[in-house]
C-alpha cells in the first residue's frame, strides 16, 4: 500500500475535484489512477500535484490516465507551443496532412478515437485526426 499512501493527497484531490469514474488500483508497485476530470484546469492541477509529490515524476510508480471531459461537439483549444497543429487523414503521424489548426484556434471534437488521437473539425470544415496532447477541452 506504500504507493497509494505516497499519492494519497493526489487521490484526495481527485475526489474533491469530482473526477468522474475515478479508479485507483495498485499493480506491481505501480499505482494506476484513471478517470475523467471536469476541466483542463482540474487536469493541470492534478498533474502539478503529481509533480509535487514525486519531483520530476521520476519514480515511474504512478500511471495517471486522466482525461478531460469532452463530448462530441465540444470546443477544443489548440495548445501547441506556437506552431500549427497538423490534422491528418489517419490517427498516426504517417497519415496525410489534410489540414492545419493554428495555435490557440478553437476546433470541434468529432470523436475521441483513442486517448492519443482525436478526430476534430475546424471552423473551415477541415476534418481529421489530431494529437490529443495538443487539444484542451474548454
Amino acid at each position: 500500500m506504500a504507493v497509494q499512501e505516497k499519492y494519497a493527497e493526489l487521490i484526495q484531490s481527485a475526489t474533491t475535484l469530482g473526477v468522474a469514474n475515478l479508479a485507483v488500483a495498485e499493480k506491481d508497485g505501480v499505482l494506476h489512477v484513471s478517470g475523467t476530470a471536469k476541466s483542463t484546469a482540474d487536469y493541470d492541477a492534478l498533474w502539478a500535484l503529481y509533480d509535487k509529490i514525486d519531483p520530476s515524476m521520476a519514480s515511474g510508480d504512478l500511471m495517471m490516465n486522466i482525461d478531460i471531459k469532452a463530448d462530441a461537439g465540444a470546443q477544443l483549444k489548440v495548445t501547441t507551443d506556437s506552431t500549427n497543429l497538423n490534422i491528418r487523414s489517419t490517427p498516426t503521424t504517417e497519415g496525410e496532412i489534410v489540414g492545419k489548426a493554428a495555435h490557440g484556434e478553437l476546433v470541434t471534437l468529432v470523436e475521441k478515437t483513442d486517448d492519443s488521437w482525436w478526430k476534430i473539425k475546424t471552423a473551415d470544415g477541415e476534418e481529421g485526426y489530431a494529437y490529443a496532447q495538443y487539444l484542451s477541452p474548454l
Partner: protein
Amino acid sequence: MKMTKLLMAIAIAGTISLVSCSPKDADVKTAVETQLKAKPDMAGAMVDVKDGVATLTGECKDESCKAECEKITQDVKGVKSVINNLAIMAPPPPPPPPPASMNTMLDEATQQKVKDGLKDINGVTVEFVEDKAVLTGEVTNANRMKIMQMLSAAKVKSDVSKLTDKK
C-alpha cells in the same frame, strides 16, 4: 632373363601410364582442388579435369573471385585449358532487422503513439524496454510534464532516469 622381365614390366607399366590419361587427370584435379580449397572465398568452386581440360563449376562470391579461380587453375601443372562455368552467388540477403518488439512487450501501435507524441519535443529520444518507455535527453519542466501526460494517455510506463532538466 630376370633383368629382361623386369625391363619389360617397366616398359609395359610405362606404356599403360602413357596411354591412359585418367590417373593424370585425377592428379591434376587433386592439385587444383588443393589450391582452390586453400582460399575460403573459393571453397564453393568444384573442378573436373578431362584430358587436361579443367572445368570449373559451383559458385563464387563475385567476378574477381571467378577470375582468380580460373587463373589459379590455369597455373596448375598439367592444365591445358580452363572452362570457367562458375556461377556468381546471389548476394546474401541482408540480416533481418531485429523485431521492434524484441526488447519490449509494447505493440507497434503503442510505440508509434509515443514516438508521435515526442515528435514536437526536441532533444528527447525513446527506446522501449520491457513494458517501459525509456527516455533520454534534456527537457524543460513543461516538456517533462507533457511527456508524462502523453505516456499516460498511451498507457505506457516510463523510465525517466536518463531524462535531465534543462538549465
